Structures are given as structure tokens and as C-alpha cells.
């Protein structure tokens, strides 16, 4: 069972037939995002935070830093870990309990985008090299689920990291400092149903989706992470097209993030 819930065959047929006319149920173009809003520094206890809305989907990201041991294979670097919580608050389909495969997949794809674009300067997060480093916890808390958690979660994480501080004071290590970061990745997600491929799927569209594709690109438009999901397939040209469309969307979203 996935997180989207059931949908009636009638609705599925309706969405697919609309798509055949090049339309989406909410009036958007295939290649159009819903409105995106980013609120920053919304929390007091988090080292960094942001609330992102994409349409009716709302996601909160909170950054916490703790002192810990480095990984044996990178003793002079800090570490990062990304988790996604799907609390029952955000959807009638979400259940309490440890993260299910859906949440784990989203977290790992977002994590790869951040990690591979070297967004966090982990090499500047050693305290005593080999002994003590900063661990960056990126916790993404979904508050209202109307589709496209990959992009909303990625965006919230990126925005929260932008205002995160190293809490030196709490650990009596001197003054708080901004978390050292590079330029963020931007994630762009498509789903395919019938013959249509649409960007930024809402819940309804995810419910009828046969295949999903996410691409995270860096400031140069280069690819840093990709993930194809669901049991449907893409042909090669569709994949290529998704990437190119994703590069264009990412540029616009990047402005919101940097603006």
C-alpha cells in the first residue's frame, strides 16, 4: 500500500481523458507548477527552518546540529542525515510508526540531491578532526499532503539550510556561526499517466500516476540525483525530456530560493 490512498476508476478515467485534451483537472498546463511559497526562520529551537507550500502541500523542515563522531571513512568531515516524517496530521492515509518505504525513498532522494551537490560544506564541520564533528540533521515534517513531497521536501530542506547556524554557544564552543553552504540543488518531479507527463503532480495526479521521475540539478544545470519510481516505465526520450524540462523549472525555482 502506498501513501496516496485509493481513487475511483471513474476519476482515473476522467483525469486521463482530460490529459488527452492537454488539460489538468486544476487547470494547469502539463508543464506548470502550482504556486510556491517559502517562509524562513519560522522556528526558535531549530538551528534553521523553513515552511514551504506548493499549492496545498505544506512541508516544514527543521535543521538541528549535534556534536558526534565522524564516519571512519571521512574522519575530517561533518556528517548529514535526512529524514522525512509523514505524521497522521498531514493526511488521512498516514499512519503513526517508524518511517515506511515511501517516506524512506523520499528522504533518500532528497538526501542524495543535497549530498551530491555538496550543498553543505561538510569539510568545514570538523571540531576535532577524527574525534568530534558536527552532525547535521535535516528533518522534514510533512504538515499537509496534496502531492509532490519530493520537491516540497527538497525545497524546504534547502531553504532551512540557508538560514541554519552552527550552535557553538550551546556547546560552549564560541559564537554561533552560519552553517557553511554552497549553492543548493533544486528538485523537479514529473508523473506519467496515460500518455501525459506532468510536472509537480498534485495528490489526485499521484493517485493515477503510473511512473514518477525526479531530477535534482545544481546551479549549472548539471544533474546531481535522479530517481525513477512506480511500476510504470518511461521510454528513453521521455527521460531525456524530463531532465531538460527539469533544468528549466529548476532555474525558476532557484530564484525563489535565492531571492
Amino acid at each position, binding site marked *: 500500500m502506498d501513501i496516496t490512498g485509493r481513487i475511483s476508476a471513474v476519476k482515473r478515467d476522467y483525469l486521463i481523458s482530460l490529459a488527452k485534451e492537454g488539460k489538468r483537472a486544476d487547470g494547469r498546463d502539463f508543464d506548470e507548477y502550482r504556486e510556491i511559497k517559502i517562509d524562513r526562520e519560522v*522556528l526558535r*529551537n*531549530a538551528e534553521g527552518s523553513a515552511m514551504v507550500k506548493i499549492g496545498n502541500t*505544506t512541508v516544514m523542515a527543521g535543521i538541528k546540529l549535534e556534536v558526534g563522531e565522524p564516519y571512519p571513512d571521512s574522519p575530517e568531515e561533518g556528517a548529514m542525515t535526512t*529524514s522525512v516524517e509523514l505524521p*497522521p*496530521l*498531514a493526511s488521512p492515509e498516514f499512519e*503513526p510508526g517508524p518511517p515506511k518505504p515511501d517516506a524512506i525513498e523520499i528522504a533518500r532522494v532528497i538526501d542524495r540531491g543535497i549530498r551530491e551537490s555538496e550543498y553543505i560544506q561538510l569539510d568545514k564541520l570538523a571540531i576535532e578532526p577524527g574525534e568530534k564533528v558536527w552532525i547535521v540533521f535535516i528533518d522534514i515534517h510533512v504538515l499537509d499532503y496534496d502531492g509532490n513531497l519530493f520537491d516540497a521536501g527538497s525545497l524546504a530542506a534547502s531553504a532551512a539550510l540557508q538560514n541554519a547556524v552552527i550552535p557553538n554557544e550551546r556547546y560552549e564552543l564560541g559564537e554561533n556561526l552560519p552553517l557553511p553552504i554552497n549553492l543548493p540543488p533544486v528538485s523537479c518531479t514529473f508523473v506519467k499517466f496515460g500518455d501525459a507527463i506532468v510536472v509537480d503532480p498534485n495528490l489526485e495526479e499521484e493517485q493515477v500516476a503510473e511512473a514518477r521521475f525526479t531530477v535534482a540539478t545544481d546551479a549549472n544545470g548539471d544533474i546531481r540525483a535522479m530517481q525513477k519510481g512506480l511500476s510504470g516505465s518511461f521510454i528513453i526520450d521521455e527521460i531525456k525530456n524530463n531532465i531538460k524540462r527539469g533544468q528549466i523549472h529548476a532555474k525558476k525555482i532557484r530564484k525563489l530560493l535565492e531571492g
Partner: protein
Amino acid sequence: MSELIKDGLRIDGRKPDELRPIKIEAGVLYRADGSCYLEWGGNKVLAAVYGPREAIPRHIQDPTKALVNARYNMASFSVKERKRPGPDRRSTEISKVTSEALENVIFTELFPRTTIDVNIEVLDAEAGTRCAGITAAAVALADAGIPMRDIPVACAAGKVDGVVVLDLSAEEDQQGDADLPIAISPRSEEILLLQMDGHLTYKEFEEALELALKGAKYVSKLQKEALMKKYKG
């Protein structure tokens, strides 16, 4: 230990019987049947209600009434030291007493075999989260149209530096002498929840209870204003 009361005022400038600033907004979520966002001092709390809906699995169904299932959860980033996700013993206890307090006012007998799920997420915490959560949950229940005898409300009083005060701040909670959170049905003044830890003489308890009741009734007005704002404007 720092002095918590100076010249009759508290460390954050409040008088002993003064609440922290409170902001309540009803109907803030798209998916939930009812919801509420509440800020109370440094607390930021979101509550969502789903139901009544069929209780699953079936063997938990009560043929005579709805189950009220509140779940209090602190986001991992809501506290100074990151909290591991998932329920701990503290949140399990709070979920239990919250469920019981809310069940009191709901006409559960109207919805046999169902569950009414009340989800409380603490996004930012600064002492008094259980009162904030219950207060938000009550608004979310009303927003969801769940029939209730009354809209419950919660508030705490306590004692710091030997003085009985209303609505402890984080510092007062950590260094103070006692904390007394209560939830009431404001119309009847019935006590739905009462917990206390610390040190109170009986006389101090009476004083603190009086103060907490006063605070709760004030917060009750804010709840109603938030619901009015949603429905009338």
C-alpha cells in the same frame, strides 16, 4: 539558581497572573477535517482532526461509541537537543491524558464503531506544550464539526520563587517549584485533566487552581474568537 521574580515581576516581565501572548487560527490545513494552529509564548503547535471514520482493525471498534485517539508528538527539531522521532514515555502519557480529556466533551455515543483521531504536532516547544496541544485540539475538533458538550481549554499555573504564578515559561518550568496543568470544560468548570509535580501546600494549590481556571477561561475566549473569525469572516 537565578532569581525568577524581581520586584514582583517575572523574568520575562510578566506579572504573576499574566499569560504569555497567544495566537489561535482555525482551519489552517487542507486535508484535515478540522485543524488549528496555535502559538503560545514560544510554543508553536498544529492540531488536525480526522473522523469520525470507521475504526480499523475492526476488533478495536466499540459498538456503543467513537474512540477518541489523541496523539501528541514533538517534532525532532522542536527542542534544544534534537529529539529522536517517535513516541517516548512522556508523549505516550500526554497522548493518554489528552485523549481522556477530549473524550469527555465529545458526544461519542453518536458515532459507534468509529474513531476520532486528533493529531497534535509540537513544532516549537517552550514549556506548556500539553496545554497548548489540548487547546489547539479542541479548536480543531470544533472546526471539524464534531458535536461537543463544550469546547475544552487548558492552562497551567505553578509556583516560582515561592510565588504562585500563571502559565510558566521555559525557565520557570525548569527552575520553578511546581507546575499544575489543568484542562476544563469552561462552561461547567469541570476538571478534565489535572496533573501536578513539584511542591505545593494545600493553600498554594487552591491559589494555583484558581489562577489556572482564570487563565483557562481567558484562553477559552481566544478559542471562540478564532472559530468566529473562521466562520464569520
